[in-house]
């Protein structure tokens, strides 16, 4: 009894587990139950039951309700899809002037709007692309084809790569200094020499459109949320879902609305990139000291002046970190958007992966990673840059960089012109190195992969088989063995113990949504893969993080490594694992583990670092050993922060599991991928994405609630 009073929570947990297992054993697996593979849901089967709700016919396999809940929400994807279709094709037909046909045409309003957005996006992308890669469409856009035929001189040549490279170097020098400038130069030369110039510039033009637009929208929405509590409350759940929704899943409904191609990709990128911008704007504005705001008010600022002259400049750093996020999200989307036909590096990567040409994929992937690092470092340098006072500058000092760039343009143009004579009859390498005319080590890499396969085939195979038969299959079977009711009880119970009735309702609602969707089994498979990945990642991350934290230099090194790995678009991680493990669940899981270890390590290090030095000293003076200090002082205090790391790890793992569908898994991701190629997949893709987001949000809610309580208990911030 005394024990019970001392550890009430522990007994609550035990009680919950007892109930959970009791339910698991009490509810038998129905004899008819089998994991539904492939397209079974799409084929009519006499064993299926049906019901009709809101005009949508839902087919499903009926089981004991305690075992699997009936998909009462099965109508939702169909309904979403029908509504989208209705909105797009039937709602509010209106007369619009058709430029090509020179007459009024009746078109539904939404279709017209989306087409107009599409047109303007396409125009913007093309405009930038033509400047970077050359062409005549831009000139035509302002004049006409006849005009360009008559005046061939006006045809825009693309910027020679030397000029873009010089521009990047000078910009990096201005932002950060020599180191970054040299790195930028190397990246540019790599891109060019390996013939990745054109796809890189296509991707860049994509980012140059998506990032500024996302910035503007994100900033305005952030400001609105700052000013009005109501808007913030309305935005908040949306932001949460968007942050945990796999980027993949957003592609599907966008495809329905905007079709496929670069413009759709830009729009969908904005949808993904705006939420972090809003959050960081809000965060930055909130962090402005109240006295600074009061000083602004007392100086007689009106609202507009207060915002533009006091709040935004003071929150500059956070807002620019938001820009950094926007750029990175845009870049990673630029890669994933290849699935809906965005041109550029992602497209090349996808092609190479589809052909299983690991060498080519590796080259494209390396290029993507290097550009990602460059963009990340550049935008961070911009955020951290502070103006300094250097006294009165001379004209040359003030306009040094502009002058250098002007010089670079001149020299680049001359080079490109000279190039036309030097490389007569072939390509002008001083202007642009064509895609397949650059250096390529693809064959070398492919041979390397072959060699690895030949040499280590047995070892890898044994490991692979062992992992699948001994660990993964049983784990998966266990997850699928859970009756739906038992899982729900477990989730709700955990919510209640951690956060009380409110939390129980939230997580219960989220779990119920998934249980009532037609994809509960798939969600379980997703959960099992993610669980495996998270456990492995956390173990590795905790160990590596703790070990590295013992030394100042290793700490710095590890954080830098985390920084770099984090900038890679998640898709890139699939290349090396496919190279080593081929197309199996193991590949996906290893990619998941590598990707999800980043936040686990980072948060471990940061958590341990946040232990106040005074406490550290106090412990040392009480004569603890290093190990005792770690166990008794540092871990307990760093634990809340480390749990936030676990939270991130879960989100990262889920993302990767979903993307892993590209390699071939049997989880929610597989269906998302299917929805991508399904004409009526819009609603399905959206609901699937929401299901994944909800899995993440269940854990997010539990962990955050716990961390907040724990922090309050420990009196940390």
């Amino acid at each position, binding site marked *: 009894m005394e024990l019970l009073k001392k550890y009430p929570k522990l007994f609550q947990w035990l009680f919950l587990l007892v109930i959970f297992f009791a339910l698991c054993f009490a509810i038998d697996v129905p004899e008819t139950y089998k994991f539904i593979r492939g397209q079974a849901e799409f084929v009519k089967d006499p064993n299926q039951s049906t019901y009709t709700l809101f005009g949508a016919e839902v087919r499903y396999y009926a089981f004991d309700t305690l075992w699997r809940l009936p998909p009462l929400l099965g109508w939702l994807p169909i309904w979403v899809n029908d509504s989208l279709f209705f909105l797009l094709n039937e709602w509010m037909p209106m007369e619009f002037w058709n430029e090509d046909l020179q007459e009024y045409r009746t078109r539904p309003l939404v279709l017209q709007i989306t087409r107009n957005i599409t047109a303007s996006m396409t125009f913007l992308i093309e405009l930038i692309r033509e400047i970077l890669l050359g062409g005549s469409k831009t000139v035509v856009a302002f004049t006409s084809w006849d005009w360009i035929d008559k005046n061939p001189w006006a045809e825009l040549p693309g910027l020679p790569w030397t000029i873009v490279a010089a521009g990047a170097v000078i910009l990096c020098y201005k932002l950060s200094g020599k180191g970054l400038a040299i790195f930028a130069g190397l990246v540019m030369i790599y891109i060019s020499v390996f013939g990745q110039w054109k796809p890189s510039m296509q991707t860049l033009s994509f980012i140059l459109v998506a990032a500024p637009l996302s910035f503007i929208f994100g900033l305005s929405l952030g400001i609105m949320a700052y000013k009005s509590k109501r808007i913030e409350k309305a935005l908040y759940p949306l932001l949460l879902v968007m942050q945990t929704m796999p980027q993949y899943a957003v592609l599907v409904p966008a495809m329905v609305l905007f079709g496929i191609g670069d413009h759709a990709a830009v729009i969908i990128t904005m949808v993904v990139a705006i939420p972090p911008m809003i959050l960081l704007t809000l965060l930055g504005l909130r962090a402005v*000291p109240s*006295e*600074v705001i*009061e*000083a*602004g*008010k*007392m*100086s*007689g*600022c*009106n609202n507009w*002046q207060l915002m533009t*002259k*006091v709040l935004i*400049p*003071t929150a*500059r750093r956070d807002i620019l970190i938001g820009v950094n996020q926007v750029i990175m999200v845009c870049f990673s989307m630029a890669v994933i958007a290849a699935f809906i036909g965005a041109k550029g590096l992602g497209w090349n990567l996808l092609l190479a992966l589809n052909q299983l040409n690991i060498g080519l994929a590796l080259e494209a992937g390396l290029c993507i990673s290097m550009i990602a690092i460059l963009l990340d470092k550049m935008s961070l340098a911009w955020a951290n840059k*502070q*103006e*300094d*006072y250097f*006294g009165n500058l001379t004209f040359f000092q003030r306009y040094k960089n502009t002058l250098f760039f002007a010089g670079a343009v001149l020299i680049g143009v001359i080079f490109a012109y000279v190039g036309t004579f030097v490389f007569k009859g072939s390509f002008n390498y001083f202007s642009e190195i064509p895609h397949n005319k650059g250096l390529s080590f693809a064959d070398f890499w492919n041979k390397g992969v072959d060699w690895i396969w030949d040499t280590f085939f047995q070892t890898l195979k044994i490991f692979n088989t062992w992992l699948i038969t001994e660990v993964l299959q049983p784990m998966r079977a266990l997850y699928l063995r859970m009756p739906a009711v038992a899982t729900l009880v477990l989730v709700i119970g955990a919510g209640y113990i951690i956060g009380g009735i409110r939390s129980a309702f939230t997580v219960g609602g989220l779990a119920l949504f998934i249980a009532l969707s037609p994809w509960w089994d798939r969600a379980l498979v997703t959960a099992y893969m993610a669980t495996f990945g998270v456990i492995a990642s956390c173990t590795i991350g905790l160990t590596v993080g703790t070990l590295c934290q013992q030394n100042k230099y290793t700490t710095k090194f590890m954080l830098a490594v985390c920084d770099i790995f984090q900038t890679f678009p998640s898709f890139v991680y699939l290349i090396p694992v496919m190279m080593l493990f081929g197309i199996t669940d193991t590949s996906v899981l290893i990619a998941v583990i590598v990707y999800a270890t980043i936040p686990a390590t980072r948060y471990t290090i940061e958590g341990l670092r946040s232990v106040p030095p005074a406490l550290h000293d106090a412990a040392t003076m009480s004569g603890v050993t290093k190990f005792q200090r770690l166990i008794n002082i540092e871990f307990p205090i760093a634990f809340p922060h480390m749990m936030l790391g676990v939270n991130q790890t879960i989100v990262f793992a889920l993302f990767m599991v979903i993307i892993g569908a590209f390699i071939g898994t049997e989880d929610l991701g597989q269906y998302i991928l299917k929805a991508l190629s399904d004409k009526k997949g819009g609603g399905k893709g959206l609901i699937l994405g929401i299901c994944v987001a909800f899995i993440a949000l269940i854990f997010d809610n539990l962990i955050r609630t716990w961390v907040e309580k724990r922090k309050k208990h420990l009196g940390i911030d």
Partner: protein
Amino acid sequence: MTNAVIKCESVYKIFGTNAKKMLQEANGNVDAKTFQENGCIVGVNNASFEVAKGEMLVVMGLSGSGKSTLLRCISRLTDATDGKIFIEGQDLLSLKNKELIELRRNKMGMVFQSFALLPHKTVLENIAFPLQIKGIKTEDSINKAMDMVKLVGLDGRENYFPRELSGGQQQRVGIARSLAVEPDIWFLDEPFSALDPLIRKEMQDEFLRLQGVLKKTIMFITHDFDEALRLADRIAIMKDGIIEQLDTPAKIVLNPATEYVKKFTEEVPREKVLKIEAVMDPVDDVKNLSDLKVSKNEIIENVAEKILTQEKSVAVIDENNKIVGTVHPSKIIHTVFGGEKK
């Protein structure tokens, strides 16, 4: 007083969702405890006072006493829950947003505890900021700001950024900024609290020098009783939102109104605070005085030695050399050593 620049009439500031309703129900009898039980926090409780033109009122209180809240009510950075505030006869609470901005642009200046400088602007730009907000031409505002830079003794550093300055220098910028629009009313919210003791002393001297030249109407907030004694024309001591006593430094030291005020005054060395004026007796016998004459505005400590060498009472004179009172040496001894002081 007809020339009151700031006038408060039973000002209340209560934080909480149903503050207004509770205040009405309380009918003027606001008790912090009962309010707190109902989820309301009392910031300012029935504050009434006036500040005359050119006067410096120092509001003294410990943290949480509501002194900063009171200041923010008077500058209308927060709206008072109830009561009336007049600035030069204008009803502050009835002002529309536009009029309020006009008032701040022309009449008010404020200095903050944490300096509250704009990190992205140089010293000069920070000082010129209120002027530019007002819409003054860049050149004029820069010239004016430059004058301010000189006034607070920062010449040569006008192009530095705030982060490149020490705390004392930053606060000089804050002071210069608040004075740039030449306000009539000057609010200072614990301006020197974030500074080291030596710098604080230096800044106080500087502040007194400035006030000697500028003669602004000042509300000065501090939690440091010594600072209050040094600077104030009158001191208001606050506790739990209530003004416990509002009087001249001398009267507060000699006649603390409540136990709470007494706690502050007990340890104060009176000879360092009080002026001769505060201890002099009325003139009864002009002939029976020593030859020494002391000004009524002298601090006791500075003339004590001279007075104590005398046997007879010493004449106290005012600015026009007219005898206004007398001080007997025993009175000085009593003030320094005797009395209620333990």
